[in-house]
């Protein structure tokens, strides 16, 4: 595909969880919990409300086709604010400072006052039915030149447990949302910009790490297509594939549109009730349903089943729309006979609804209300196919295809959060923000100043332990020993099942400092750290794991070993050094520094030879 020729335009919104002490609008910790730790649950219904203009947002309306009951899990780390049972606390100043830092790092202009708004979201992921969001700064750019339009501070949504059940531990964790201009024109550019923004965010040292802590939404359109927002892309490496597949989807939908126009296709305005036709069917789904509606799509034959993305057909899009009414899916004649529906039944259906060879018939089976609602949705989506690509919010599926969530939200979606006072951003506050070093610059500095090789420098700079690394090195510990311990040893211990989260950076630096000064053998570092993870204090850990040998004790040990191997030494002379080192180390490992052992052994051996 020639993306530039297709007129690909893409922008991204990056949502990054902040590692603050407290949530954005309450004093609860930002800790994620296991569902089994819940202390209780409650349930609510949400409904779309009118905006001040008397309109209901089109995206909210779409979510409200059926009355949905949402269940929420509570924890001993959540409170009435998450339950939507208490007004929000003032905006978390720590979170605002981080957002301002990000804004300053990208050369943005802060707003004079931060106003919190409510953004309607009634899919159940927010107990209130809205997500609080606040614009913090405008107009910046990142290295490489991509323009940043806005930086916002938002509250994280509740985590879906399954179906309509949500967990409240995640609700309210602060997020920064960075929105780029739609400046990117190839899949690779999109991925590169996302990577750079991720680097900038991590440079603050104040963001959460790990799966699900950063999510990209991608806005894509092609020249004759439409703007589509794809939500929740978690893996950076999939971004280019998502862009490629969405471009293909839009190209294919435009192809279908052109074909429909050639065929003079249309959508029959009324669904037909066909319940009685399937009274004796072998299809369990149709047999179970007490109401079956058929939608006749004139001239659509073969196109409903046409693939528009790997694993996705126009029929999948229609099914997504229908599911908003609470039905499980649809059948269409492009895929029939199948699923227990026979060729005779299909023929009878076509005859009954007056569908010709070039037509496609879509079936929905459910209760009467739901089936009619779903039939209307199918007709709506079919009509949209005649126009081309609908503006939609979509969600990413595994491997980079997408499914429909709801129409793009309209202007009726945002209104002021009246329970939170605006926060002024004074020039003093803005000027007082210190810019952290970009991780990319840090990596270059580690190469230039510390002599680390490029790969190790990047690994250290990008890791969560970059701060500890720098402090240890400033304290005189050798960079290579520090890097090896922080990146290698800790990971190995963790893999062995040691709970390394119990170690704080200061403790690790203390161990490294003692090793560097020679009071602890380097070989003993893993054992000492492991003991400290088990709860021992540093001195106890060293005594326990590596009772240090004094030089006299070491010399005595060496002499003892040499005296029992006199014959071997006579035979090999100084050539015995290597094998003997192994014997001594076996006894002294972790109790004395390897270098000292080597020196003493050499001296003692020379005296004997």
């Amino acid at each position, binding site marked *: 595909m020639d993306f530039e020729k297709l007129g690909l335009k893409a922008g991204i919104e990056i949502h990054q969880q902040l590692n603050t002490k407290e949530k954005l609008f309450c004093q609860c910790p930002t800790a994620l919990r296991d569902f089994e730790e819940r202390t209780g649950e*409650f*349930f*609510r*219904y*949400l*409904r*779309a*409300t*009118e905006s*001040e203009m008397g309109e209901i947002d089109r995206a*909210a309306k779409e979510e409200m086709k059926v*009355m949905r*009951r949402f269940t929420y899990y509570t924890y001993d780390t959540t409170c*009435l604010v998450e*339950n*939507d*049972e*208490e*007004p929000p606390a003032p905006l978390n100043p720590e979170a605002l400072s981080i957002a301002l830092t990000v804004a300053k790092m990208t050369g943005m202009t802060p707003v004079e006052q931060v106003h919190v708004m*409510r953004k*309607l979201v*009634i899919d159940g992921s927010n*107990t*209130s*039915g*809205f997500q609080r969001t606040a614009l913090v700064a405008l107009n910046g750019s990142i290295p490489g030149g991509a323009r940043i339009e806005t930086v916002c501070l938002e509250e994280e949504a509740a985590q879906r447990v399954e179906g309509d059940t949500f967990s409240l531990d995640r609700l309210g964790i602060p997020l920064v949302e960075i929105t780029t201009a739609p400046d990117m024109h190839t899949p690779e550019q999109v991925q590169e910009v996302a990577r750079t923004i991720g680097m900038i965010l991590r440079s603050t040292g104040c963001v959460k790490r790990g799966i699900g802590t950063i999510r990209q939404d991608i806005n894509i359109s092609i020249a004759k297509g439409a703007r589509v927002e794809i939500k929740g892309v978690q893996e950076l490496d999939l971004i280019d594939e998502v862009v490629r597949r969405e471009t293909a989807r839009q190209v294919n939908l435009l192809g279908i549109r052109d074909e429909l126009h050639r065929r003079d296709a249309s959508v029959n305005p009324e669904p037909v009730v066909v319940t009685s036709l399937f009274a004796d069917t072998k299809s369990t789904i149709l047999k179970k349903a007490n109401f079956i509606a058929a939608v006749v799509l004139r001239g659509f034959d073969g196109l409903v089943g046409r693939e528009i993305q790997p694993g996705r057909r126009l029929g999948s899009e229609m099914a997504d729309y229908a599911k908003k009414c609470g039905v499980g899916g649809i059948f269409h004649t492009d895929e029939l006979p199948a699923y227990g529906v026979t060729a005779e039944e299909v023929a009878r259906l076509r005859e009954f609804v007056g569908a010709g060879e070039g037509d496609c018939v879509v079936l929905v089976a459910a209760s009467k209300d739901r089936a009619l609602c779903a039939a209307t949705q199918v007709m709506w989506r079919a009509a949209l196919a005649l126009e081309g690509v609908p503006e939609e919010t979509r969600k990413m599926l595994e491997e980079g295809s997408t499914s429909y969530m709801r129409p793009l939200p309209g202007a009726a979606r945002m*209104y002021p959060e*009246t329970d939170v006072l605006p926060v002024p951003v004074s020039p003093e506050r803005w000027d007082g923000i210190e810019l952290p070093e970009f991780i990319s610059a840090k990596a270059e500095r580690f190469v230039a100043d510390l002599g680390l090789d490029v790969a190790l420098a990047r690994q250290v700079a990008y890791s969560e332990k970059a701060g500890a690394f720098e402090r240890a090195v400033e304290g005189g510990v050798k960079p290579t020993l520090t890097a090896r311990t922080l990146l290698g040893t800790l990971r190995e211990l963790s893999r062995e099942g040691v709970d390394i989260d119990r170690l704080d950076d200061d403790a690790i630096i203390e161990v490294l400092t003692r090793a560097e000064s020679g009071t602890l053998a380097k070989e003993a570092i893993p054992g000492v750290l492991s003991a400290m993870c088990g709860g021992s204090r540093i001195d106890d850990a060293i005594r326990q794991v590596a009772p240090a040998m004094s030089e006299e004790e070491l010399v005595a040990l060496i002499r003892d070993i040499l005296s029992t191997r006199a014959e071997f030494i006579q035979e090999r002379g100084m050539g015995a050094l290597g094998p003997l080192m192994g014997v001594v180390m076996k006894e002294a490992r972790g109790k004395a520094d390897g270098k000292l052992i080597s020196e003493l052994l050499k001296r003692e051996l020379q005296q004997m030879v």
Partner: protein
Amino acid sequence: MEQNPDLPELAILSTGGTIASRIDYRTGAVTSQFDADDILRAIPRLGEIAQFRAHQIASILSENMTPSLWIDLARSIYAEIRNGAKGVIVTHGTDTMSFTASAVSFMLETPVPVIFVGSQRSADRPSSDNVMNALCSASAALSDLGEVAVVMHASTNDDRCAVHRATKVRKMHTSRRDAFASIGMLPLGYVDYPSLEVSLGDDAVRRGGIEVALHDTIEEKVGLVTFYPGMPADVLSRFEGCRGLVLAGTGLGHVSTACIGALRDLIEGGCHVVMTSQCLHGRVCDRVYDTGRDLLALGVIEGEDMLPEVALVKLMWVLGQHDDAGEVRRLMRTNLRGEIRRCSCNGF
């Protein structure tokens, strides 16, 4: 908006509650338009339950409610019932809803349900409790109930509303949906959601049986004081000239010995003093300890198991009806609208 003429008629009186309120961004205020159309557009399902006529009595925050507005409201409710309303719904801010509900309860003898309803979470939010509370209140207003009640969420779930007796209900939480609680008794009943099925307990007064009647005079010169350790006696002296004073005393109904003199002066000056307890739960008994006996000797009236706010409203109303000290004392100790229970039940 068309209403179904086959459905029973309900009246909705608004005092500035949030059921159909909307913020006007030109003025920054809550819009004052309030008619049946507004309500039905906000809560379409109401139109399947009843026909509505709506009137706005006031458009105020409930902390700005006054006894004179209680009287306006009681008169409007009376007129609606005389006009054939099968039930009356009053939308009200939640802060002082229980004061107004108990005032109406004393002023009005009603054969039909008079239901006070509000919402704890603003109507603009998709999670607001206003829709469920309004629907449940409409169902309660059509039910077999025959007294003044408050209908609000029974728990944090959207599962059912509780029907509370107006003279036994209290707002017990600043923000939760289920802030309202019956004190000293179980709720009169429940309205399930979304079925809107009403179930009433044996305590609930049933519909019909009496003619509607209105007794709408109130004495406003009545005070309410919560006693606290070290309270200076001259706090009480400030109530000189009042016709009544309700004390929320400690425990069984006490104030400090230092306050006795000031109380004597008040009572000798013609002020009726009623003792209630800041415990809220339980009954006042001033015969157990010395201070209590001193209070009784002064002529302090024991308020039984009345809530302090209910005793205040009742005393205002009783003093609006009667001048005779003996009659005031007798009525304050007599159950009139379910505000006094003969026995303190198990479990409360």
